[in-house]
């Protein structure tokens, strides 16, 4: 039986013959192997140590206490128990009309939520669309303009949309308008970046061809760039719409319209069965939107592939 490293294994009747190295050479090779493994282990151990140190510091910073977690875990379970109990002490699903008593009002608010995200996504997409050609490296008219637009987009997407909503509620007054504008701003940043990245990956030959005929910058964008990216843009926009429905559902927390205001009232006032009913409706809506946009995306891309 032949094996490269002493003590590796005696695998009984191995049929393949391996050429054995002389002991001296083998020892040298083994040394190098052990050193390499030891170095790797040291690196992993150090990395893990740093990670755990960071975790410990973080748990001090976030006031984490394992004992409280275990005590509270029971609360969490009983919270869900209470969520699924009606006022008369029965389970929610035994009396659906009682559980979903406010479904008309909630559906209207959910409709408003979807409308907020629709209008916000569309206006954000339109503005992001207008800006992205200025931010993409290969189509931008000038590096300085590109730098400014890119920083602007970064600002728009890094500041959370709910922070914008908080400020807009003060500037524009309570109501869905603030939510729409917050989502618009956030979508400009997020979509503008994705659009620009897509434009940076296009084939430049059509653009060159068009420019050689004397076409203007706008004509180049319209007839050379847009046909290459339209389907991708549509797909990203639909994805963003899906994300925005989720964030619009919490815009109401700060008074910016939609179902959120109803939900936060129910949570704060401990109307347990209402909380679960509204959550159920939100989850169902998000599911439907997910599936719908997924289907639409599939169709858009399918069409593109056929032609």
């Amino acid at each position, binding site marked *: 039986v032949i094996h490269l490293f002493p003590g590796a294994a005696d695998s009984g009747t191995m049929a393949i013959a391996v050429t054995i190295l002389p002991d001296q050479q083998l020892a040298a090779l083994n040394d190098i192997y052990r050193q390499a493994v030891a170095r790797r282990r040291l690196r992993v151990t150090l990395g893990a140590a740093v990670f755990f140190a960071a975790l410990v510091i973080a748990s001090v910073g976030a006031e984490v206490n394992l004992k409280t977690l275990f005590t509270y875990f029971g*609360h969490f379970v009983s919270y869900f128990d209470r969520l699924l109990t009606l006022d008369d002490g029965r389970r929610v699903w035994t009396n659906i009309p009682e559980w979903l008593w406010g479904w008309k009002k909630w559906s209207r608010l959910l409709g408003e939520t979807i409308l907020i995200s629709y209008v916000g996504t569309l206006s954000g997409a339109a503005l992001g669309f207008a800006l992205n050609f200025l931010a993409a490296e290969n189509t931008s008219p000038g590096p300085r303009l590109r730098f400014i637009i890119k920083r602007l987009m970064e600002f728009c997407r890094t500041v959370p949309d709910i*922070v914008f909503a908080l400020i807009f509620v003060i500037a524009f007054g309570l*109501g869905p308008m603030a939510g729409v504008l917050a989502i618009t701003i956030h979508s400009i940043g997020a979509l503008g970046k994705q659009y620009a990245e897509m434009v940076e990956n296009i084939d430049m030959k059509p653009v060159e061809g068009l420019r050689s005929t004397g076409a203007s910058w706008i004509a180049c964008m319209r007839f050379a760039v847009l046909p290459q990216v339209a389907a991708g843009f549509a797909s990203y926009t639909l994805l963003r719409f899906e994300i925005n429905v989720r964030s619009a559902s919490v815009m109401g927390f700060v008074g910016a319209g939609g179902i959120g205001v109803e939900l936060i009232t129910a949570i704060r006032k401990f109307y347990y069965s209402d909380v679960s009913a509204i959550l159920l409706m939100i989850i169902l809506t998000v599911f439907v939107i997910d599936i719908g946009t997924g289907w639409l995306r599939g169709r858009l891309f399918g069409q593109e592939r056929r032609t």
Partner: protein
Amino acid sequence: MTERSMLETEGLRARYPDIFERPASSRLAWPAMLLGAVTIFVVGLIHLGFSPIRMWNGLHELGWISMMMLPPNPGSSLPLYLSALGETLSIALLGTTLAAVFAFPVSLLAAKNIVPSNIFRFPIRRFLDTIRGVDTLIWALVWINVVGLGPFAGVLAIALSDFGALGKLFSEAIEGADKKQVEGIRASGGNVLHEIRFGLMPQVFPVIAGQMLYFFESNTRSATIIGIVGAGGIGLQLAEQIRVLEWQKVSFLILMILIAVAAIDWISSKLRFAIIGRRAVA
């Protein structure tokens, strides 16, 4: 247009009638869709209470607020804000780690190549979807009701909502892993745990680490949000300062968030490169 090109066009039209005379349904599809989209948009604007005068007044107010924000100035609360920022980063780190620790075993159960039977996989996937369908902010409110106000509720909220997202992503990473290594371990007599540890883990670990870093990044942003409903961190300070209209402090806090997020972006891209190496780039 010269005569020759006219003739050529005629010839082309005769040869490819499909391209020149598309049916009305395909010609009208795009304009109709666009018209529909714009109609809903306009109806939406009216329904949601947009009006030029409100817009004008709001923009005026906004311009005034922006003027008030300059220059950013923390006043005397800089130490408070720095510790709040530390709290936010702690929330993000702990939340992501906790989510990953719980998501990994569940993702094994949700992966097709580990658990071939649909009976377990389907409910687990739907369960993860349900958790993901609820916004982090809502989870934060629920946890605040359970454990009280403070950063701990934030940690749990981020952990729970990321548990759903990471579970899905991990299981996709596991399903994308190469089968050969696992089969090799099985052929040499390893049991199921050996297969996972030596066949699967080396393949999926870099992917998982990369995703954790990415989520840590995005959680720095989420952690600022959940502070607004009272789950600790810098968001709490931000919401309070907006409510009392201390605009210079608000702009300072926003600046702090921007810098922190940029720094985390930079660090995590370096770390991701160190862990995944050139493979991810190529």
